[in-house]
């Protein structure tokens, strides 16, 4: 490989969203040499689109809030399928990570006393989301970007080289992870990829690799996700021998734009509802009162009066049902539309115009105001928005050790949306930005410790491995007359959207698997014109392989799980089944055939002290009788139920 560019680092972070940057900062502050690789320009990653805020139980809005309440909300939101250790660490450490972000320079909206203002969000008992207007993700990523620039300028002063210990390789795509000595089941030893601009191949030698690549939404037609979300990290991990868990759980955000067609799927922040917005059907009815499921009865208001009273007096009123977890709201909207009570363009109405004064709407939701005015010609201070579900987030991902982010493959770490477990079957809004910071810090530390220990005997990349991955990357150019990657991608999105979407049925998922096999076969023969220099067709051809593998994991897991829970709704198995609560479905690639295999494993047990944060009467809604045989109500700490 004469034109191969080669770099050696201690820690290689793939992905420059919130989790990747936070991990990189931690590893660099541990004194290691760190490379960050990203597909986009630095600072444009998907985190930028997060609008609502960072969930952290700082208690600024309500002094009753604490990590135990946040933990409980997270578990309820995930329908108790969460990895409890992850939910615990997240709830405990999120406040400190927010304060830390503030020391990095982050800006937040303020309470009258000058504290960080916290906003209401679905599934959170108290107003808990630290935010700045509706651009919290932009502020988060800009702050981390700024922190990295400051660390680089420190290095410039110390070593005369700003990139001595932290370098960002932007517009570079990783196509494969490398293994020590080429042994497919050995530790990772680096990663291989290409510069998007020149097409030149690049090899990174690194004993520790952190996957922070985000989600998979670009496999679906209607999605709020950006072009980067092609499941790269999920697929890289699979091919490197790691396991993906919970892949059947895909979050459809209840409120995406539905009109006009060019912007269908673009997110409408949950803050609209958190700040008072309500959902109505074509009959003008606030339909969410009809959709409070059994497990949440008693926690949500039953009348409009009570719901409206909650915004001012949460102590004496129950929460409006518009603020149920996202899976519940998305299903409700889907039902209303299906039963003919939808809006003109196939959504429902989200109205904040009759709920807040125009000035207040513009102050709290400036981006939404612009977005609708500019793209849909709708003034949200005077008219309702039309909204419907959009593919937003994947709960499933790489199985990792909660404390360190280590996967089952030595040297391979993962953090953020690309991991599974933290959010169980459904993620609460605001818990993603917290996830990025909490586990970014932990995984950065975990990878740094591993890399430091491996520094004496660094794993190696052998030439045969490089030749093999180079050949795979160049394959699309070797063929002529094949189909266009754009055509295949559009077909894939349609299949996933229509057959493995928000409501699932066995025959449709079988059909989806057949179609995925067909697309996979055709993708093996697709061809790309031109050469490697900034060739978007070639880039998509390589991303398509990842999307196909990940989509198959989603479809296989969804077919297997015969119940409805969180982000997985089966029309043929509409109820939640306690027997399935303790089951994680895990995907791996069969080493011999390279095909996706599915196994069942136990959801990690919830520690006793954490179990006792709940009352038996609530646990009975989720757990089997046998699981609760030894459980007795011993209330610890203060009452966390309002």
């Amino acid at each position, binding site marked *: 490989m004469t034109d191969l560019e080669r770099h050696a680092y201690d820690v290689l972070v793939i992905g420059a969203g919130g989790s990747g940057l936070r991990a990189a900062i931690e590893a660099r502050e541990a004194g290691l040499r760190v490379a960050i690789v990203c597909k986009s320009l630095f600072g444009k990653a998907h985190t*930028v689109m997060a609008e609502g805020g960072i969930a952290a139980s700082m208690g600024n809005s309500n002094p009753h809030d604490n990590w135990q309440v946040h933990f409980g909300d997270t578990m309820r939101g995930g329908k108790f399928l969460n990895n409890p250790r992850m939910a615990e660490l997240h709830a405990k450490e999120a406040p400190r990570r927010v304060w830390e972000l503030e020391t990095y*320079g982050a800006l937040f909206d*303020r309470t009258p006393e000058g504290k960080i203002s916290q906003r209401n969000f679905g599934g959170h008992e108290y107003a808990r989301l630290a935010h700045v207007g509706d651009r919290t993700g932009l502020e988060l990523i800009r702050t981390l970007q700024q*922190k990295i620039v*400051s660390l680089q300028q420190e290095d410039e002063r110390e070593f005369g080289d700003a990139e001595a210990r932290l370098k960002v390789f932007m517009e570079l795509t990783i196509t494969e992870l490398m293994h020590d000595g080429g042994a497919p089941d050995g530790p990772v030893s680096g990663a291989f990829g290409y510069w998007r601009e020149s097409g030149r191949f690049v090899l990174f030698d690194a004993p520790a690799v952190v996957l922070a690549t985000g989600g998979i939404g670009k496999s679906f037609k209607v999605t709020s996700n*950006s072009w980067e979300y092609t499941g790269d990290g999920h697929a890289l991990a699979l091919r490197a021998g790691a396991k993906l868990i919970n892949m059947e759980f895909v979050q459809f955000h209840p409120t995406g734009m539905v009109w006009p067609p060019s*912007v269908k799927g673009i997110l409408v922040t949950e803050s609209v509802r958190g700040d008072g917005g309500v959902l109505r059907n074509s009959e003008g009815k606030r339909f969410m009162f009809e959709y409070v499921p059994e497990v949440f009865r008693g926690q949500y208001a039953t009348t409009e009066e009570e719901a409206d009273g909650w915004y001012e007096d949460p102590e004496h009123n129950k929460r409006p049902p518009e603020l149920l977890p996202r899976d519940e709201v998305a299903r409700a909207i889907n039902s209303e539309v299906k039963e003919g009570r939808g809006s003109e363009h*196939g959504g429902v109405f989200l109205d904040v115009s009759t709920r807040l004064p125009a000035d207040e709407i513009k102050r709290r939701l400036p981006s939404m105001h612009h977005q609708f005015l500019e*793209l849909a010609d709708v003034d949200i201070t005077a008219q309702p928005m039309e909204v419907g579900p959009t593919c937003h987030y994947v709960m499933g991902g790489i199985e990792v050790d909660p404390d360190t982010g280590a996967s089952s493959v030595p040297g391979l770490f993962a953090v953020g949306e690309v991991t599974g477990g933290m959010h169980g079957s459904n993620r609460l809004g605001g818990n993603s930005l917290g996830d990025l910071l909490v586990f970014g810090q932990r995984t950065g530390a975990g990878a740094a410790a591993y890399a430091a220990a491996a520094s004496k005997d660094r794993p190696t990349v052998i030439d045969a491995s490089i030749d093999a991955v180079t050949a795979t990357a160049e394959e699309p150019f070797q063929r002529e007359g094949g189909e266009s990657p754009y055509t295949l991608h559009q077909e894939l999105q349609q299949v996933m959207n229509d057959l493995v979407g928000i409501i699932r049925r066995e025959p449709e998922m079988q059909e989806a698997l057949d179609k995925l096999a067909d697309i996979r076969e055709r993708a093996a023969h697709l061809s790309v014109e031109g050469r490697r220099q900034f060739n978007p067709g070639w880039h998509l051809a390589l991303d398509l392989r990842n999307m196909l593998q990940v989509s198959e994991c989603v479809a296989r897991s969804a077919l297997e799980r015969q119940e409805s829970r969180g982000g997985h709704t089966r029309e043929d198995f509409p109820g939640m089944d306690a027997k399935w609560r303790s089951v994680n479905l895990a995907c791996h690639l069969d080493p011999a055939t390279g095909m996706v295999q599915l196994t069942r494993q136990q959801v990690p047990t919830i520690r006793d002290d954490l179990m006792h944060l709940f009352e038996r009467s609530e646990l009975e809604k989720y757990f089997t009788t046998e699981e609760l045989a030894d459980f007795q109500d011993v209330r610890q700490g203060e009452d966390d139920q309002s």
Partner: protein
Amino acid sequence: MSVDAPSKKPIAEAVEVPTFQITLRIERYNPEFDTESHYEDYEVTVHGTDRVLDALHTIKWDMDGSLSFRRSCAHGVCGSDAMRINGKNRLACKTLVKDVNPDKPITIEPIKGLPVEKDLIVDMEPFFDSYREIMPFLVTTGHEPTHERIQSQADKDRFDDTTKCILCAACTSSCPVFWNDGQYFGPAAIVNAHRFIFDSRDEAGDQRLQILNDKEGVWRCRTVFNCTEACPRGIEVTKAIAEVKRAIITRRV
């Protein structure tokens, strides 16, 4: 609540959006084959509600897969798809075709003043270099992340406007001074300096003002207002630059 109950058509496809033909005249450049750029015309059928980005996607997906441009979030938050549309810097994802005189060919060119890499993609490094020059990070001492730091809403509001920047380079690459003088920091870097100079928590204001008092700093600005007009986030860029100028004079570094 006065929702006008519309006709019950639950399926989006039930509503037809009118389509029309437009011509996009795109400046193309492929460094592998071309010594200089040239323009190519594309006839595209678009919906009345489509954005310029949708038209570019149609070309890329259905007509010419080699067309290269950056885009990411596709709704004006990430700042990847700034380009010159009929001579004005805009984000393609926030510009409706119907608003840019579609009866005539719509000209699409890369933003000016930065080296073109391919088609609509420019080298952003010089832009980020200027950004890094102004120390774009909070400088503060003695604040540990064990508790929060009080800041009043009024102090926060003082620099709120300039924190909206998405680093898309629309302002900097619309500035005639920047076109003619590659050394000028440009409006985006000054906006990002403003964000810290006026942050009550920051301790490096004097240092930043000194940097911007440099010969390639704020005094190059001739108050043309192109930057304010170009900003897709509605930041009052020229005003921010004027505030920095005033701060240099009054604080006197």
